[in-house]
């Protein structure tokens, strides 16, 4: 039962991504259990974001396939994949800068709308109900990430750390089953990072999520990820629990500058 493929929220099967002559990712395999908090780590340029772009439909892999809850999603567009339950954040924050904080979250809800454009223009009951539900929901999400006091600010006016949390709230608004976080702690100080990791754990339990998280600093994820994959030069060099990874020769080499030597 437990090794039935449908138990996995996310499966990557021998994914390859070729940019011209550069193999950004090759033969990438991954199995993430439902409800897991899974890490993808590796030095800069290892191909982590490329994996995210493939899983979220931004890139079409040159080889292999992606399955979400047993359903093949390879080659679907990002919006379709979002509809099917994958939401993500971006390494270089991509908020809707001129929208308010609240509106950013509301855009996340848009994908789950049922009211048609006509209903919206005429402000018919179903649309009004949906809009007030969205508003409730969005306000709740902002409270969850601690941004309710800045709900009516322009997103671009927020400090960096809050922008990162807003991205998470916006992603949650799409009601995802799997949440992809691309270096969520980048640029944060240790205290902020600590709070963020707590938020990630809370969010997973509250919304019944599977979380797939990228980080290039190993320390950050060691405490919260149950399993992780280590990527270097587009290749998987290790897979396992944090303690297994910590003692892995190849990983130590890649991280202690061994990688730099191996880089020809």
């Amino acid at each position, binding site marked *: 039962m437990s090794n039935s493929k449908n138990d996995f929220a996310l499966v990557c099967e021998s994914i390859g991504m070729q940019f011209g002559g550069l193999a950004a990712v090759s033969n990438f395999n991954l199995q993430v259990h439902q409800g897991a908090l899974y890490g993808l780590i590796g030095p800069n340029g290892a191909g982590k974001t490329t994996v995210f772009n493939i899983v979220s439909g931004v890139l079409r892999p040159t080889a292999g396939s992606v399955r979400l809850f047993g359903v093949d999603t390879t080659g679907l*567009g990002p919006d379709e994949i979002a509809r099917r339950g994958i*939401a993500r954040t971006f390494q270089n924050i991509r908020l809707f800068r001129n929208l308010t904080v609240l509106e950013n979250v509301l*855009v996340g809800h848009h994908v789950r709308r049922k009211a048609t454009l006509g209903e919206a223009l005429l402000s018919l009951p179903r649309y009004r109900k949906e*809009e007030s539900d969205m508003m409730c929901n969005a306000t709740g999400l902002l409270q969850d990430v601690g941004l309710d006091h800045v709900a009516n600010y322009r997103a671009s006016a927020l400090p960096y750390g809050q922008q990162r949390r807003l991205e998470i709230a916006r992603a949650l608004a799409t009601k995802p089953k799997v949440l992809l976080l691309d270096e969520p702690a980048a640029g944060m100080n240790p205290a902020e990072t600590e709070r963020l990791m707590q938020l990630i754990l809370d969010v997973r339990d509250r919304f019944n999520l599977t979380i797939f998280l990228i980080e290039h600093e190993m320390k950050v994820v060691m405490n919260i990820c149950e399993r992780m994959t280590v990527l270097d030069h587009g290749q998987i060099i290790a897979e396992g629990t944090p303690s297994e990874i910590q003692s892995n020769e190849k990983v130590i080499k890649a991280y202690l500058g061994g990688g730099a030597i191996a880089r020809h």
Partner: protein
Amino acid sequence: MIGNRSNEFVRKAGPICVSLLVFYLFLFWAETGWDAYKVRILNLSAIYIGITLGLNLCNGFTGQFSLGIAGFMAVGAYTTALLTMSPATKSAVFFIDPLIWPLNSIQWGFLPALLMAALVSGFVGLLIGAPAIRFRDDYLGITTLGFAEIIRVIFTNTRTITNGALGLKGIPPHTNLYWSWSFALICVFVMIRLTNSSYGRALRAIRDDEIAAEAMGVNLFYHKCLSFVISAMMAGVGGGLLGSLITTIDPNMFRFPLTFTVLMMAVLGGLGSITGSVIAATLVTVAMEVLRVLEEPRVILGIFLPGIPGMRMVVFSVALMLVILFYPKGFMGDRELGLKSIRAFAARFRRTFLHKQV
């Protein structure tokens, strides 16, 4: 409960109904009492408000830099004209190549003709938009500009439908202040409703970051098409009203300068601001007429000054540059002028003023 609800309805809708009533009474007064020249300017203002809002939806709110508005205006103007002209006028106007059946034998009322203009220009908008919106920024601008030119060239050459370069004359002058301002008000209403709805937020999200919008599940193709088509429909109806106002149209009216004029109105008012478009469209329309004196020969202080055709546009270009210099985002930016913002402005004004006094 129900009582509460209807009370709330009255509280919200009451002031709107009253101001609409007052506004239409004003239009009645203007229509019956003002001289034709002023009425014409008022008509033009309303028509340009609608068209500018349409352009602002696409170029401002959705961030799709389209330059095809004159083409859609042409489609709407010709549709309306061909549907409202009487068969007798048509056979007189199409004296070289007769108009094809069934257009030569029908005459519709103004409202159905305008609705048809909306449908046809919306459809043409979809035909052009669907392939064009795959491009971004300047490329989209160039593509849509090209399409608008193609429409004009087609209209110049399909003589059995459009009478070619000779254009159409004797279009029934249905347009009056009620028609034109109802159009403007409907456009304002649609814009307010749309841009404040979930769909409007999605459009603004696309403007700010396409990649993020798509990752949040916003279907880029659908939403861009949506804004493109609505924009084309507004331009089409506006074109129809314009044709019926000035009663003659020909393909050369719908060259790029027309698009530029509307674009200028939207930019001056602020891309992404409804009130900005309304203000700027009105100001520019009035100024265009007032500045007509620059193009007419006249004698000032005994010196004869020949009129310089196109001088108005020179003045406008300079004005546009100045505005962009001092208000890089237009008068309103992407904000709206409302009671709230006026109050905020007053408060800020008072604060700085008092501060200086102390």
